[in-house]
């Protein structure tokens, strides 16, 4: 099923913020912004919750920590041989390996979490995407019903959009 949306292109940040506020007050439907730089204030306006990537980082770090200990202790027990007069389970040196594995797995899980949550990688950019939005323009996309399209277009123009575009989603 095809949905409908309108994208407004803004040259100024203040106009974008005003349009976001207006769209929120007007209960226009799902809203998203597209911008060349991160806009944490707009995310706050949109009531975005903290990114769950942190949970992936924590899960990865804990996994790495356990893998590091399991690898070192497990291998020592699997083939019990005393080397250099050191104890079979030499916890201090094994801790070095566990520490490195913590960082390695934490990083890998962080990137995986980012890709999963940001819905990347994608073969193609989404419909209606415009190259100006990685350059020097801010975009506000409002998902709406077919009947609301014209009203939303007008409203975005009122808030200072330079241009509005209808996009199927």
């Amino acid at each position: 099923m095809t949905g409908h949306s309108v994208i407004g292109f803004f040259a100024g940040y203040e106009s974008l913020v005003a349009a976001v506020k207006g769209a929120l007050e007007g209960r226009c439907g799902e809203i998203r912004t597209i911008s060349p730089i991160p806009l944490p204030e707009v995310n706050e306006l949109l009531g975005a919750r903290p990114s769950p990537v942190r949970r992936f980082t924590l899960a990865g770090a804990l996994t790495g920590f356990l893998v590091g200990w399991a690898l070192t202790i497990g291998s020592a027990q699997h083939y019990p041989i005393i080397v250099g007069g050191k104890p079979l389970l030499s916890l201090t040196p094994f801790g070095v390996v566990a520490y490195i594995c913590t960082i390695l797995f934490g990083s890998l899980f962080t990137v995986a979490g980012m890709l999963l949550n940001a819905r990347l990688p994608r073969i193609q950019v989404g419909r209606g995407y415009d190259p100006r939005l990685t350059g020097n323009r801010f975009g506000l996309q409002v998902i709406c019903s077919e009947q609301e399209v014209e009203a939303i277009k007008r409203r975005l123009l009122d808030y200072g959009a330079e241009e509005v575009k209808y996009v199927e989603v």
Partner: protein
Amino acid sequence: MGNSATLRRRLPTYTTVDADLVKTMRPARRPYYLALLCLAAVAAWGGYAWSVQLRTGLGVAGISSPVGWGFYITTFVFWVGIAHSGTLISAVLFLFRVRWRAAIYRSAEAVTVFAVMTAGLFPLIHLGRPWVAYWLMPYKQMGGLFPNFRSPLVWDVFAVSTYFTVSALFFFTGMVPDLAIVRDRSQGWREKVYGFLAQGWQGTNLQWKHYTAAYVFLAGLATPLVISVHSIVSWDFAMSINPGWHTAIFPPYFVAGAIHSGLAMVATIVIPMRRLFGLETFITREHLASMAKFMIMTGMVLGYSYCVEFFIAWYSNNPYERDLFFYRAFGDYAWALWLLVGCNVLAPSLFFIQRVRYSTPWLIGISLLVNVGMFYERFVIIVTSLGRSFDPFMWSVYVPRWPEVSILAGSLAFFFLLFLLFAKVFPVVSMWEVKELLPLPSKEHRA
């Protein structure tokens, strides 16, 4: 604040940022290809020297008992040290919100990734039989035996490979929004290639939210690596009982040295790049002066470490330590010790003079001296301690032979070759982070 003020004064628009930085990726002219060719030739010569060593055996190199670690391990430690600047500038300075990093961190990260790649070759070159290097990997080998996790050499495998993985992830992740910018300004096959690399990035609020969160966590995870990787490399030495090696100061001493050499290499690369690509607006003299100030600090830490090493050798009353340090200062390699003190401590202290700090010829000259000094620092640590150990019967003087010198030259060429390729294929300055430093465009002041 002065740096951002400079950027604001000279970079009024987002459009200029994109246009000026994408311009650096335009097809190159003849001198660029000539430079590539020369570097490829030197790298190939290094490859030939290695092939001779492989066919003939390690005997063609100067390393032999007791100096089993000569130029190869010196060069390995040198390159791992060089790699430290990238993570310091990109991750540590990011966490401290140091604004001048935005202009240079991409190049510094590239230095890190390429330096670790170069460093990774040297344990293989050093092995008599590099085709069995996979024995170092943590898997169940013949008879169920695993590598010895109590050995610092195995920690090193873990540390350096993790450092490479995390640095490469950080490097590539940081570049994704810029790759999307390049995609949007390219056509034909370039658009397809950059489109693939940009992974469909659009810059939606959802993508930015997860991206910035991941970036902070990656920076947080990479930061301890700046400290730990070279600490672990230093344990390759400090865990043994050799005079000159068995000392607790090694980890901080190595980390400071790594950052010192890394900053010097970044300056060595960034200054000519800034000139060739016309990036003076983005990489200002303020940025270079900030790096110089950092090098004053690392140089002073190194100077302190050198003094402490000698003091502890004297204060310990251990005859082996005392003799070794006396030998370092006045023996066969005394020239190298005094050279490294001059290059690493005295030369960067010239940066106390403001005129020197802001002069690019001085900056590049001193950075080159630091690069030389840092190589000899590792050389002196490794070679003097092995060649002058406990038993006088075993004492010897190490002299590198042509394959070792050729492979060192080849590694330098390989590194610069990778950087030259990077500079033409990827944006050398982070566009989205430079834009972040600019004031947000308003209606009156249109982007």
